[in-house]
């Protein structure tokens, strides 16, 4: 019987969810992008409205599905649907946005029940544009939320750095 397991990439618009999935996927990433017509236009021309999908064959029977959620909060109803049954969630935060900590809070709040029974890894992107808040600020904030998650500054296009996110998630699940 074929088995499918999944990992979810979520986070702010433009944080690099699609790029991160693309670095890992065996197949071309299936995206449900549409042209943007709102404030996101300043960041990019298209955005994900339902999901991104990539997959990795683990063996003949097992596929690792990589789901990217839409970043915009108004599509949050998709977040719960996509995270159901996932191994864990990678929360990608664009550090060049006005308030990255508040952005993180939105995802922690919305994924709290899921994270409570699985795990989360936080990836901070675009730190080359803005190095504030610092990693220490993120750790301090997560500590106050009782969530000692790993936090890494990564380039979502760099396969090695995206693999660090996956590897950290596996380490957490392995010792749980």
């Amino acid at each position: 019987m074929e088995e499918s397991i999944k990992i979810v990439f979520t986070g702010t618009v433009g944080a690099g969810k699609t790029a991160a999935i693309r670095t890992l996927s065996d197949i071309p990433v299936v995206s449900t992008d549409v042209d943007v017509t709102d404030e996101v236009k300043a960041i990019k021309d298209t955005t994900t409205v339902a999901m991104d999908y990539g997959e990795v064959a683990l063996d003949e029977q097992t596929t690792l599905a990589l789901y990217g959620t839409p970043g915009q909060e108004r599509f949050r109803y998709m977040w719960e649907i996509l995270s159901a049954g996932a191994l864990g969630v990678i929360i990608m935060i664009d550090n060049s946005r006005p308030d990255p900590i508040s952005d993180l809070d939105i995802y922690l709040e919305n994924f709290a029940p899921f994270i409570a029974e699985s795990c989360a890894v936080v990836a901070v992107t675009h730190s080359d544009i803005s190095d504030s808040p610092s990693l220490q600020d993120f750790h301090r904030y997560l500590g106050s939320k009782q969530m000692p998650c790993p936090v890494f500054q990564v380039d979502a296009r760099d396969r090695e750095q995206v693999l660090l996110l996956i590897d950290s998630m596996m380490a957490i699940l392995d010792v749980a």
Partner: protein
Amino acid sequence: MVKLAIRLFDRSESSHVEMVVRQLHNRVKDGFLLTSVAEADAILISPNDPGFETLLNARKSAAEKCPVVYSDANTGRYGFFLSKPATTAGLLKLLEQLERFAADRTQSNPVPRKRAVTPNGYVTAVVEAAAGQGYFCIGNGQDSLYLNAQKRKAAVPVYLVSGKQLASRFAALIKSSPTVAVKPCPAVDYEEAASDSDFQPMDLDLLLWLLGANSHSRFDIATDQPFRLKNWPDFARLPYKRVYLKLAALLSGQAMTYTQLLNRPDVTDEDLRPFVCACAAIGLLEESEPVIAVSPARSTNKKTIEKIITRFFGRSRG
């Protein structure tokens, strides 16, 4: 003062309790402190929480953190109890009970806390210099490198480093040299080195991490003192072995002793010692009471994890 943590996954419950806590805190500011689970003396928790039994058992076995059951009815089974919905009067009564309990426990069972990992020799001076604000020169008369502690930067001769690793000469230097000295230096010495092409700029934390991982014989380890990580090391910037991820996962949510870690079948002294020394060098280790993790994570099939590790990294986790 009672250190209280709230661990309620129901958002409306959590918000309500936090509001009550804030109201009470305005009245009795010094009476209690809201803090993280790791730091807390008592944890407000739902009996439906997957980590509840673990917490309860931990307390039974070693008088650890007090679980405070947040529930509709007090069955009397669990000791401390806060009735739903929380009120300031109910919370105040609970805090008085917890204070009495903490005072009794301190009297009957004082826990001395010692350093889990302590640098010795010149490494002490390097770590202390890095924790300061000034400029320092580290040298042995032949090789010199410079620190700008305030900006968390170092300037290191290029022949001593190789990317994110130490060159063998540096490794040999820090392992064996008895003559290394750490001295304050003028800012201009650092600036000159930093702009010299014979020197490589390096993050100070990376230098300290390499120093800790490569000179672990210069650290004393108290094998029975529990410690934990303040937070995960930044493995995107620091060199690591895969087993370090597992150690970070273990130690970020709970305190364990060196001996407890070594007793795990997947941990060897060869891996553990450099990891804890590196963490100590960059100030990530924190001594703690022997807390057992309240892990909410559901158990994941180990075969699934191995399949993912093997697929992405080519071999089983070390």
